[in-house]
């Protein structure tokens, strides 16, 4: 009887282990062929564009403030 119980418990353990075989899918494919860098590049270009716009706007406003200060 104890042997039966033990083998039953071991079966449960084995069943539990096999349920976790598959790993969550990740973008390993994109990493393997380096295409992930395309994603990085695209977003980097967008960011660079936005930040360039901000810098240009910042400079313009600084110039306006300075001109105002001079004319007073």
């Amino acid at each position, binding site marked *: 009887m104890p042997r039966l119980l033990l083998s039953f418990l071991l079966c449960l353990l084995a069943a539990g282990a096999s349920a976790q075989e598959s790993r969550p899918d990740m*973008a390993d494919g994109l990493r393997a062929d380096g295409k*992930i860098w395309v994603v*990085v590049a695209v977003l*980097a270009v967008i*960011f660079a564009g936005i930040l360039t716009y*901000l810098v240009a706007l910042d*400079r313009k*406003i*600084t110039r306006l403030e300075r001109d105002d200060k001079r004319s007073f």
Partner: protein
Amino acid sequence: MYLCAAFLKMRGLWWKVGCLVLLAYVLVAGLMGPVPARFILNESIRNLYFHVPMWFGMIGLFAGSCWHAIVYLRTGDIRSDIRSVEWLKAGVLFSVLGMVTGMIWAAYTWGEPWSNDPKQLGTAVCMLSYFAYLILRSGVADDEKRAKISAVYNVFAFAMLFPLLFVMPRLVDSLHPGNGGNPAFSNYDLDNRMRLIFYPAVIGWFLLGLWITTLRIRMRFVELRRDGLLPASPHA
């Protein structure tokens, strides 16, 4: 550093460069860095560096707005009212971006963009209250009256954020991590590798919001000075 600032013709150079550097780091490390592999989330766990900082940024910007509103109530200086509005507008922008990115994320992980999740609902209500603030302002013609009403409304709107966004979602069933009995990201999935990118992301995105805000404020001041509605202030 002073020469740099003079050359680039920008004020507050250090924190703006900091913002740039942080966001560039977050962008590259966010996509290339290691993350835990989780079912359902898969690679979208990286959204932690983009969607979540929108909300932290929003809270920070609304806090700044509330602060300036209180300063206005105490001093009556119309410039504080202007600052308060521009901080708030940036906060609204971040909230819209956060909501949209959240819905995109939810569409793929929760199965639908809108699930009547308590946090989604709470956030929507808060956003509506801030939209109402902007509409209310446009309805009042007199500057001083507008500023006073706005400032008082601002304090209430800010106070509403806490029960609706932080308390209520934790008390009821929720899909969001960290709410409704779910393990928070910080307990299970936010390992130190992600923290290394998440914290700089929060700071970087907030600084971006701050940059946009200060530009808008300075622009308004220039306009008002030229219209003669503001005394020429010392270049502060």
